[in-house]
């Protein structure tokens, strides 16, 4: 029987993400877009440090493991050497907006020609749920046990809004908490990849994603939290380049 919808052929085996983790959805969307664009042999992904690096035994593309926070710098360099390839990073919020904020912002400032994918789950997932720059006000983590207090810790950082100050080619924020947002987020990834291959310039998609384990919620409670709390502070939509 012919399959009308099946996992992309570049996804293999089992992923080791926790139940309900958004990383599995985002990786599938990237693989779908790469396959639909016919670029599976011509795509190079740069993995960050964090749960994003679990992708290295799940996605059959050429992948490089960058040092913590340096994925954007590595990707920009790869694209300069191989401008014919589709080059993207796959990073968490901690990697891209904390230790790697300099690499993120200077890639945008130089309008480097690659795509940055930032999975924003509001915590340092892999290391056990410490507060990240994007943890919400009041959010309890192992390093903000009474909840994030803006008096001491500042307000949650909006990396896409910071990037938007530069003259970049495409920028959007999506979410993977329900089917409609997942479909929309896929169109953002596709536009970012197409912009890179056609007009060129820096492109970025930030994606709001559940980390049920470190939010201490069930997967269904976690996606509910995104809908009711997270999207209010991190609204989704195209920020730059959407009209093209």
């Amino acid at each position: 029987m012919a399959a009308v919808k099946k996992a992309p052929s570049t996804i293999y085996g089992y992923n080791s993400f926790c139940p309900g983790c958004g990383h599995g959805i985002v990786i599938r969307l990237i693989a779908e877009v790469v396959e639909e664009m016919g670029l599976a042999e011509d795509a190079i992904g740069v993995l960050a440090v964090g749960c994003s690096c679990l992708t290295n035994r799940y996605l059959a593309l050429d992948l490089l493991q960058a040092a913590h926070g340096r994925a954007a710098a590595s990707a920009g360099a790869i694209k300069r050497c191989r401008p014919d390839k589709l080059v993207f990073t796959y990073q968490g919020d901690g990697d891209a907006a904390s230790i790697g904020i300099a690499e993120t912002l200077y890639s945008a400032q130089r309008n480097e020609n690659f795509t940055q994918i930032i999975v924003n789950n509001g915590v340092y997932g892999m290391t056990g749920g410490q507060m990240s720059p994007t943890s919400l006000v009041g959010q309890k983590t192992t390093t903000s046990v009474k909840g994030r207090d803006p008096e001491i810790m500042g307000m949650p950082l909006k990396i896409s809004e910071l990037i938007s100050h530069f003259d970049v080619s495409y920028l959007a924020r999506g979410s993977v908490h329900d089917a409609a947002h997942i479909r929309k987020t896929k169109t953002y990834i596709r536009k970012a990849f197409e912009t890179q291959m056609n007009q060129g310039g820096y492109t970025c998609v930030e994606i709001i994603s559940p980390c049920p384990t470190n939010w201490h919620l069930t997967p269904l409670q976690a996606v509910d939290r995104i809908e009711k709390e997270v999207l209010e502070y991190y609204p989704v939509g195209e920020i730059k380049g959407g009209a093209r």
Partner: protein
Amino acid sequence: MVHINSEKCKACGYCVKACPKGALAFGENVNGKGYHAVTVDEEKCVSCGTCYTVCPDTVFTIEEG
């Protein structure tokens, strides 16, 4: 119709919530990883593929017929 790879399922429940026909439910048996993998009521399923879209673990394949 929908094909379920039970061994990949981690029982997150996203598909059970998202299915517009209420065709999905957690099964009685546990899979090799200890999860009550999702099962489908083929009478109710209309092969829309919403389960495929929300699944983080590529459990679903939608087939013709």
